[in-house]
C-alpha cells in the first residue's frame, strides 16, 4: 500500500516538475514540427502520400524518440544531477516506487505528446483547406468534425496504425532512456547514441539484426494494416531480406522486452549506489 | 585619517521595486575593513557597483580616485581593484599558472611580466607544485588560495574579498586568514572583506561596516566597537563554586551567571582588582581556569546593529523582524 502511495507521490512530483520545465517546451515544439509540415504540405499533395511519408520518417524515426528521450532521461538523471535524490532515498520508501512512479508520469507525458503529433499530422494532412494561408476561422472550428469524416476516407487502418505505432514508440523509448538513467550518469547522451547511432544503424541495414531495433517493430504496425506504407518501405533497398511481423506478433515481442527491461531497471535502482560528487 | 579609499554618496540601486541599496553615504578608510551584514543586506550589490558591473539607480561612488558608477571609469577601475569572488570559480581546463597569467594579461600586464607575476603570487599563496596541474582536481583550500592569487595578480591597491574562508577546513582557514592578515597589516593593502564568520573579521580587520536592509547601520574601529563596557570580570572556576560566590558576595561584589557559562563579577569602581578575586578563590579552595575583563564580541556588536537582541536564546522572544532578515523579497516597501 505504501509502495503505491509513494509511486503516486513520485509521479505527481515528476508531473509537476515536467509541466513547468524547459524540456517540455522543447518537446512541444518538436511535436508540432511534423504537424506544421503536414499542414503546409496538405495543399500540395494528397493525404495518402503525406501521412505515411511524414509519419514514418519524421514522427516515428525522429520526433517520437527525441521527445521520449528528453522526457524519459529526466526520470533518474534529473534528480541525480540536481542532487535532490537524497531527500527521497533517505525516506522510508521503496526506491523502485520512486522509479516506477516517475516513469509512469514521463510515459504519460511523452505518449500524449507523440500521439498528438501523429494525430496532428493526420489531421493537418487531411484537412481540406490545409496549406492555404487564407483559411477562415470557422472552418478551423469545424475541423475536428470534418477530420473524422476524412480520416474515414484514408486507406483503411493508416490512421490507427500510425497512432498505435507512435504510442508504442513513446512507451518504449521512454523506458529505454529512463532505464539507462538508472545505470549511467549521462543517460541523455547515451540514449541519443543508442537510438540514432546504434538503432539507426541496425534498423537500416539488411538482415535479421533489424529485429534488435525498436524501429523494426514499429514498421510492423504500419505495414500490417496498410499497403501504401508497405510499398514505401519496400522502396528502401536496405530493408530487403527481412519480413516484417504482423502487429500482434510485434506487440507481444515488444511487451516481453519492455517487462524484462523494466524489471532490470527496478532491481537496478534498489541496489545501485549513487555518487553525488560535490 | 588619510583620504578614504572608497567614498560613497547617496548610492541607490533598485531591482524593480526592491531597493537593494537605499541611498547611503559611506567613507571607507584605508587598511583592512570588514563588510558585514545578513544575507540580502546589499553587500553583493555594493561590491558589484564598486567593480562597475552594475549601474546605480542614483548616487556616486569613488574608488581610489576612479568613479565606477560613471561609464568612463567603469572598466578602468578594475585595474586597481582585485576581486576574489565567492564560490568556486575557475577558468575551465587551465592550470593555476595559466589561469593567473591569463587574467593578469587581460588586466594589461605584458606577457613576460604576467608570467613572473603569476609565479610570485602563487608562491605567496603557497601553491607549489600543484600550480602546473589542471585546476579541476583542486581541493577547496587550493581553489580559495588560487582565487586570492588571481586577485593579487596585478598588484591592486584594493582587494575585495567575498567570503574567503567559506568551506575551508580549520587548517585552510588559518592559512587564508594568515594571508589576509599579512596583506592588510604588513603589506598595507586596502581590503574590503565580506564574511559571515565574525571571528575572521575580528582577527583580520581594524575597521568594520555593518550593512542591513540596504543601509549602513554601524561602522567604526573594531577596538572601539568592542571596547570593554564598565568593569566586569568574567571568571571560570573549577570546584565548589557555591562557596566562592558566597565569599564574593560577602566581600560586597555582585555576581551573575555569564551568557557563555562562567561567572560575571561586577566591580563597584572602574578598575577591577583581580588579585582580590584570586585571594577569595584561595580561601574558598577553588581553582580559576579563566579570567578576563568582559568585552563585547563583534557578534554582539553585529547582532545589536542589525536589530537582534544578543543571546536571544529562545525562539519566542526573538523580534519578529529578523525571521527573514536574509529575505531579499521581504523588503518591499
Amino acid at each position, binding site marked *: 500500500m505504501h509502495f503505491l502511495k*509513494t509511486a503516486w507521490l513520485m509521479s505527481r*512530483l515528476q508531473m509537476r516538475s515536467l509541466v513547468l520545465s524547459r524540456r517540455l517546451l522543447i518537446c512541444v515544439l518538436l511535436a508540432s514540427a511534423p504537424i506544421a509540415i503536414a499542414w503546409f504540405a496538405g495543399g500540395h499533395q494528397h493525404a495518402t502520400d503525406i501521412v505515411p511519408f511524414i509519419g514514418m520518417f519524421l514522427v516515428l524515426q525522429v520526433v517520437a524518440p527525441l521527445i521520449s528521450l528528453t522526457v524519459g532521461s529526466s526520470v533518474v538523471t534529473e534528480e541525480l544531477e540536481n542532487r535532490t535524490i537524497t531527500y527521497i532515498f533517505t*525516506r522510508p520508501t521503496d526506491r523502485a516506487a520512486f522509479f516506477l512512479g516517475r516513469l509512469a508520469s514521463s510515459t504519460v507525458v511523452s505518449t500524449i505528446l507523440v500521439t498528438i503529433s501523429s494525430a496532428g499530422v493526420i489531421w493537418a494532412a487531411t484537412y481540406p483547406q490545409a496549406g492555404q494561408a487564407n483559411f477562415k476561422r470557422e472552418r478551423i472550428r469545424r475541423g475536428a468534425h470534418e477530420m473524422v469524416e476524412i480520416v474515414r476516407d484514408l486507406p483503411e487502418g493508416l490512421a490507427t496504425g500510425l497512432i498505435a505505432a507512435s504510442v508504442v514508440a513513446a512507451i518504449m523509448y521512454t523506458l529505454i532512456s529512463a532505464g539507462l538513467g538508472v545505470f549511467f550518469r549521462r543517460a541523455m547522451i547515451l540514449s541519443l547514441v543508442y537510438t540514432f547511432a546504434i538503432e539507426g544503424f541496425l534498423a537500416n541495414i539488411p538482415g535479421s539484426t533489424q529485429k534488435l531495433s525498436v524501429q523494426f517493430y514499429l514498421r510492423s504496425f504500419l505495414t500490417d494494416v496498410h499497403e501504401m506504407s508497405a510499398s514505401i518501405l519496400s522502396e528502401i533497398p536496405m530493408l530487403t531480406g527481412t519480413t516484417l511481423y504482423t502487429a500482434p506478433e510485434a506487440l507481444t515481442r515488444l511487451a516481453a522486452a519492455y517487462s524484462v527491461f523494466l524489471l532490470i531497471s527496478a532491481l537496478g535502482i534498489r541496489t545501485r549506489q549513487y555518487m553525488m560528487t560535490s | 585619517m588619510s583620504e578614504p579609499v572608497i567614498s560613497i554618496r547617496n548610492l541607490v540601486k533598485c531591482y524593480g521595486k526592491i531597493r537593494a541599496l537605499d541611498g547611503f553615504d559611506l567613507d571607507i578608510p584605508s587598511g583592512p575593513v570588514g563588510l558585514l551584514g545578513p*544575507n540580502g543586506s546589499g553587500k553583493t550589490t555594493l561590491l558589484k557597483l564598486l567593480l562597475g558591473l552594475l549601474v546605480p539607480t542614483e548616487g556616486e561612488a569613488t574608488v581610489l580616485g576612479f568613479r565606477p558608477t560613471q561609464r568612463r571609469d567603469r572598466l578602468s577601475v578594475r585595474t586597481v581593484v582585485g576581486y576574489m569572488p565567492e564560490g568556486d570559480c575557475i577558468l575551465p581546463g587551465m592550470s593555476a599558472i595559466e589561469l593567473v597569467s591569463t587574467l593578469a594579461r587581460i588586466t594589461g600586464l605584458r606577457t613576460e611580466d604576467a608570467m613572473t607575476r603569476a609565479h610570485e603570487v602563487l608562491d605567496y599563496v603557497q601553491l607549489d607544485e600543484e600550480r602546473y596541474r589542471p585546476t579541476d582536481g583542486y581541493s577547496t583550500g587550493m581553489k580559495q588560495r588560487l582565487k586570492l592569487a588571481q586577485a593579487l595578480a596585478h598588484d591592486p591597491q584594493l582587494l575585495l574579498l567575498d567570503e574567503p574562508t567559506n568551506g575551508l577546513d580549520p587548517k585552510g582557514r588559518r592559512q587564508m586568514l594568515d594571508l589576509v592578515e599579512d596583506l592588510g597589516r604588513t603589506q598595507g593593502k586596502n581590503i574590503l572583506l565580506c564574511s559571515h564568520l565574525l*571571528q575572521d573579521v575580528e582577527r583580520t580587520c581594524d575597521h568594520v561596516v555593518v550593512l542591513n536592509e540596504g543601509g549602513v547601520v554601524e561602522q567604526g574601529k573594531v577596538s572601539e566597537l568592542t571596547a570593554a563596557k564598565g568593569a566586569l570580570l568574567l571568571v571560570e572556576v573549577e570546584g565548589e563554586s557555591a562557596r566562592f560566590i558566597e565569599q564574593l558576595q560577602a566581600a560586597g561584589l555582585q555576581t551573575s551567571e555569564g551568557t557563555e557559562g562562567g561567572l560575571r563579577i561586577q566591580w563597584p569602581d572602574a578598575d577591577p582588582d583581580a588579585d582580590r578575586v584570586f585571594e577569595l578563590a*584561595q580561601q574558598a579552595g577553588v581553582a580559576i581556569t579563566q579570567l578576563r575583563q568582559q568585552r563585547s564580541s563583534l557578534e554582539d556588536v553585529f547582532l545589536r546593529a542589525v536589530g537582534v537582541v544578543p543571546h536571544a536564546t529562545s525562539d519566542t522572544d526573538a523580534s519578529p523582524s529578523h525571521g527573514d532578515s536574509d529575505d*531579499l523579497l521581504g523588503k518591499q516597501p
Partner: protein
Amino acid sequence: MKPIIKATGLGRWYGEVIGLNDLNVEILPGITGLVGPNGAGKSTFMKLLVGEMRPSSGSLEVLGHTPFANQELYRQLGFCPQQDALYDHMTGLQFVTHCMRLANLNHTDAKAMATRALQRVHLENAMNRPVSGYSKGMRQRTKLAQAFAHTPKLIIADEPLTGLDPVARHQVLDLYRELGDSGTSLIISSHVLHEVQSLTPRIVLIHRGRLLAQGPVEDVRQLLSRHPRKVHLRAREPRALARALLELPHVHSATLEEATGDLHIETRDIRAFHSDLPALASRTRSGIESLESSDASLDAVFDYLVG
C-alpha cells in the same frame, strides 16, 4: 548506554582512492561533532551513515540497522545534506510536506508537521513562496526543517551552517541545542570548530580516512601529554609573576612578550597550575588582569592532532 552508531573495521574505496580506512567507532546518544580536514573521509562516513553507499569492508550499524536503502532506519533518521539542492518549483511548505508524506503520513498530518517545523526555523513568512526565491540561509533552514520535522531519533547534518549569516547561525545553533536537549541524537559535521564546541564537547575526529580521536575534547586534550599546556597571563608586574611561577614544580617555561606584556606559560599539569595560582596570585599581588588557556579548545586539539 547503548551506542546509536557502531562501526567495525569500516572501509570504503572509490576505485583506488581511499575514502575511509578501518574505522572503528561507537557513538553514544546525544550531540556529537564530526570534524576533520577536507578530504579526510567525513563526507564518506556521512554517506555511509545515511545509506547512500555501501561499505567496501567492515560493518556499520545505525540505530541497530545496516543503513543501505533500509526503510526501517529511515523512519527514525533525519538527514540534512551538504549540497544546496532543493526542488525549486515547490514552495518551502510543499517541499517539507512532500518529504513528510514520503515518511508515510497522511496529507493533513504531514502538512501540520511541516508547518510546525518551518515555524521553528523561522520561515513561517516565507514558506508559501517558491524555494527558487530563497536566499542561501533560507534554503539551509528549509533543509534542516525537513530533517527534523518527523521527530526522528537521530539527525545527521552535513555542514549545516555554511552560508548562514551570523543571525541565522545563531538561531540554527540554538535550534540544535534545543533538539539535543529534547533527547534527539545529533551528528553534526562542521569546519567551524568553535561552533561545534559551543554545541557539544563530544567529538569524533577523522583524518586520512582513519579515526584520529573521539570523546570529550577536554579528555582528548589530556591524552596529548607530549604537548605542555599553554596559559596566557597579563599582569601589571609580569616579571615578578614570571619569577614566582617558575618556582612551581610543574611550570615548564615562562616567556614574556616585550611588545604586549603578555606572559606565556607552559605547564605539564594544568590542574595543579590552576589550583596553585590563586595562592600564588594573592601572595605576590602582581596584578593579574587576565588569564586564558586557549589550547584546550577544539581548535587547539585539532591543530595538535592534524598538524
